[in-house]
C-alpha cells in the first residue's frame, strides 16, 4: 500500500518558470521531510515540517505542510538547471519513515 502519493511523477519545464509538486496521503503524519536526490548519489534532506500549516522557505524553494498534516507541497520559484533532480517526500508516522516514489524534475536551460 502506497501511503504517500507524489505528483506529478515527471516534470520538465523551462528555466525561469515556477512549479509546484505535491505529496498527498490519507494518513496523518507527525512530520514530513523533503529530500533531493541527484544521479549516482543518495537523497539529501532539504527540510522537515512539523506543524500543520507550517511554511518553510529555503531560498527559492517554499515548503508547506497541510493543516491536517496529511499532505505537503514544494513550490520552486524561477527554476534553474541546478534544481534538476528527484524530489522525495517522506512522512514520519508511528516511529517509522515512509517515502513517496518521487517527482523527477528536469529544468531546461
Amino acid at each position, binding site marked *: 500500500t502506497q501511503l504517500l502519493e507524489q505528483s506529478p511523477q515527471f516534470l520538465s519545464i523551462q528555466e525561469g518558470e515556477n512549479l509546484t509538486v505535491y505529496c498527498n496521503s490519507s494518513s496523518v503524519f507527525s512530520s514530513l*521531510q523533503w529530500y533531493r536526490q541527484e544521479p549516482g548519489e543518495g537523497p*539529501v534532506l532539504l527540510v522537515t515540517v512539523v506543524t500543520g500549516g507550517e511554511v518553510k522557505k529555503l531560498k527559492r524553494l517554499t515548503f508547506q505542510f497541510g493543516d491536517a498534516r496529511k499532505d505537503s507541497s514544494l513550490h520552486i520559484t524561477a527554476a534553474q538547471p541546478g534544481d534538476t533532480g528527484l524530489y522525495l517526500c517522506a512522512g514520519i508516522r508511528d516511529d517509522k519513515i515512509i*517515502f*513517496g*516514489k518521487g517527482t523527477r524534475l528536469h529544468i531546461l536551460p
Partner: protein
Amino acid sequence: DAGITQSPRHKVTETGTPVTLRCHQTENHRYMYWYRQDPGHGLRLIHYSYGVKDTDKGEVSDGYSVSRSKTEDFLLTLESATSSQTSVYFCAISESSPTTQPQHFGDGTRLSIL
C-alpha cells in the same frame, strides 16, 4: 556531509551466490538503515538497526539478513541472490529515531544479479 561509506559501489554477480554489502559510518550515530530503490517503487526499507546487535525488519526484508557487531558497521547479506534483488541499495544513518532526527544517506551500491 555525513561520513558514510558504502562498499562496494558496484557489483555484478550470479543468481544463487551470497552477497554482502557494507555500510561504514564515522558519525557514531545510533540508528542505521538499509533501503533499496527501484523504479516505480521508490525507497523501501529492508532492515534497520537501533544499536549494536539490535536490528528489526522493514517492509521488504524477505531474502535479506543484517548484522551490526560494531556501532560503525552495518552489513546487509543476500544469502542466495535472486534477479529480483537487482537494485540500488542505500545505507542511511540517524542520531536517534527518525521521528526526531533526519536521516543521512550514503551514495548507494548498484547491485546486478544475472
